[in-house]
């Protein structure tokens, strides 16, 4: 079953759009969620992320990962609410949402603390918002991960990150492989009979692991035999520039984040520092990339659809930032 037969080949289909567009948009959504404390906004962002995946996904193993992100999101919300009910700061003044018997525990030092008790509407709501914010962030990233084809993304990564990106893309591919190999091995093991004790586990685990390692080695051998790993030469000057700009990037980003955390009111200073850090990050990548001598035969061009995806994400972030979605 291919993407083509799955009839989702419309304007915004993931198989036609740039994987980077989904990541930029996903990060915008995640940032908007982190800035908002309105339950409805957070729920809308989550719903939007899932809807986009549903409409734009292609029939590929990574598209199915959104289910796991949804599961993770629900677990986060549930845990958050349960924790709030259990570790409750009892408050008898506001109207109660749940009135549970309070348990107080005295450890023999300091104040005794209370579990359960009278859970107020306000605190439940706060817990829900906290949980939903995390869930919305998880789903936004999940959206990007489900829609961006890791192999296309690999083509679009700058040369300096190519080795890392290759490793990640192989790892992503390995997961569905391991699942199918697990099924195959379990069935094959049934042909031999049941072992007793630990052997029954090793009987499954060893062939599956062996298979996974063998497949990875085979892929690695094939890549190596086709020239992966060749490196060009860099001049001393390029090395110097690369090191210097790496240092500047790290320093600026660290300072910028520190400013953001400690004096978030000076918006323009921390924004300026972080932005200049990002500029140097770009320079670092550019300079470091000259060492790899690859051709990019198939260049994924940025198209109108990608612009639509990015602008939508950007607009949502902008409105969150300016307080429209407060």
């Amino acid at each position, binding site marked *: 079953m291919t*993407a083509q037969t799955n009839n989702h080949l419309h304007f915004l289909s993931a198989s036609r759009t740039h994987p980077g567009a989904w990541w930029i948009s996903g990060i915008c959504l995640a940032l908007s969620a982190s800035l908002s404390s309105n339950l409805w906004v957070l729920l809308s962002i989550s719903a939007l992320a899932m809807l986009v995946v549903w409409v734009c996904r292609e029939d590929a193993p990574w598209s199915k990962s959104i289910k796991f992100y949804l599961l993770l999101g629900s677990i986060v919300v549930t845990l958050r609410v349960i924790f709030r009910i259990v570790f409750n700061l009892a408050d008898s003044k506001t109207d109660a949402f749940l009135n549970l018997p309070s348990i107080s525990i005295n450890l023999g030092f300091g104040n005794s603390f209370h579990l359960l008790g009278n859970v107020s509407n306000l605190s439940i709501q706060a817990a829900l918002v906290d949980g939903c914010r995390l869930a919305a962030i998880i789903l936004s990233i999940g959206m990007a991960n489900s829609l961006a084809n890791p*192999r296309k993304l690999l083509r679009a990564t700058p040369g300096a990150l190519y080795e890392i990106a290759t490793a990640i893309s192989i790892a992503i591919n390995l997961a569905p492989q391991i699942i199918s190999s697990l099924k195959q091995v379990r069935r094959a*093991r049934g042909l031999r009979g049941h072992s007793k004790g630990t052997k029954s586990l090793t009987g499954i685990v060893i062939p599956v692991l062996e298979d996974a390692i063998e497949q990875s080695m085979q892929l690695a051998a094939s890549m190596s*035999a086709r*020239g992966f790993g060749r490196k060009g030469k860099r001049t001393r000057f390029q090395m110097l520039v690369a090191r210097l700009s790496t240092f500047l990037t790290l320093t600026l980003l660290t300072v910028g984040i520190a400013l953001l955390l400690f004096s978030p009111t000076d918006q323009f200073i921390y924004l300026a520092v972080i932005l200049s850090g990002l500029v140097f990050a770009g320079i670092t990548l550019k300079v470091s990339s000259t060492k790899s001598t690859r*051709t990019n035969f198939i260049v994924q061009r940025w198209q109108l659809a990608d612009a639509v995806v990015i602008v939508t994400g950007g607009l949502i972030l902008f409105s969150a930032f300016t307080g429209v979605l407060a």
Partner: protein
Amino acid sequence: MIETRNLCFSYLNSDGKQKSENPQLNRVNLKISAGEFVLVCGPTGSGKSTFLKTLNGLAPSFTGGVITGELLIDGRNLIGSEPYEFSHLVGYVNQQPEGAFVADIVLDEIVYGAEQLAVNKEKIAKDVDRLSKLMGLDMLLDKPVATLSGGQQQRVAIAAALIAGAKVLLLDEPTSALDLQGASEVLNLLRQLSQEEGVTVLLAEHRISRVIGVVDSVIVVHGDGSVTQGKPAEQFNDSRFAPPIIELGQKLGWKPLAITNQEANSLWRQAPAKYSEKLVNPPGELALKTSALEVRFGSVIAVQPTELNLYGNQITALMGENGSGKTSLCWAIQGSGPRYEGTVNTLSGDPKELSVQDRIGVVTMVPQRASDLLFLHSLADELQESDIFAKVPSGTTATLFQKLAGRIDTSTHPRDLSAGQQLALVLSLQLVKNAPVLILDEPTRGLDYSAKRALAAQLNALRSSDRCVLLATHDIEFVAMVADRVLVLKEGQIVADTIPVNVLGAGCELASQISEITNEPGLFTIEQVTN
């Protein structure tokens, strides 16, 4: 093009420090000229793959071990270089292309090698155009590789190996997983590459009967470290891997031996030998009966409703192209595979209804990837565990294994056995259970002729103990050797159910090599020929 001087290769001993005393390759001296089409063969486990891998640095880079001597490719000594240093000179294609694919679209896969070597875009575009036309892939460039047939995938792998301008192509059993049509497509292309494009082709193969007529020379990796090179007719004194055409020549005393079917045919017509009729065993008792057995995957019907009776005292071959439903039918009969509908009756009931432990006493099966059944750390442990599983006296499996594979150090890790030895091991583990029905799915993959003969002898012994054997395969010569009855599966439906001569005899689509050579009615195996 390729020259080796005193090339030696040894794996390390298990302590990881010292060279093993038995080198895989010992002082190998070869000269292969440009555009030569070379067949690399040798008995199971002799180190054909290792030999190929030393020619592009994958050994020792990916296998471990120590390499010494000189390896000149296109005049450059590349001994000890990493595989990527070879990539503009040597292309490499292995047994399972799907495992070695880097990209998911055909075009991306083909250009990968050229991109790594920074070939400029105009040249890549030109090469893609030329190679894809040559390989018949020009209509498939935008298709996902996973949707292609095995033969098409192998052609993509060949194009991808040649894109960076390689003048040497190494292929490690490229046709072993392909059906007849896919295999002959690939072989024709390889011949074209060597004759018209001047590519030096080194092809390691087990199924040499179809290859031997088209190659320029044969390299034999003997397994004791020695490697010899010569003309096809001179290289097959060792009958362990001689194909039927050579066996026929030897039996009838042809000098020199014929290596193409045409040569053999004219020799046969000059002096045809006498031959006897091939007798098949009559069916014994009904061992297994399927009723309306059907397998579906989603909306795809893999096996159409099947009514099939299998009898004891017989070996039934299940033939058919890749994807015709052989494996699905085997698993459905065995009981642990999916069934859409239908039942299977044996003397002990439907295997699907039995517990795993009871089922293996009724139907045993050797699956396609035999190594999935191995999980212990030494051969001795596996053999011992098997005796316990099957409740037979200690040492029974070991005796059986030795009969199939010869004497092998029992401290060996099962993963270090060759494909053929692993199959022999799994076969012994399964045979020792003594179930009345035995199913084998592609058992001859990676086996040389002598290992196939050993397997055939074992199956014959089983048959005479009134066992029912179902053999799913596309190995025509093996079916000719052992089968009493042949089923042909096409698109999930049994389209033929007959005695072997009607499927493998002269003029048939699946004619055996002896049928093709002699063109005599009723003659299709070497055993029938009397001199």
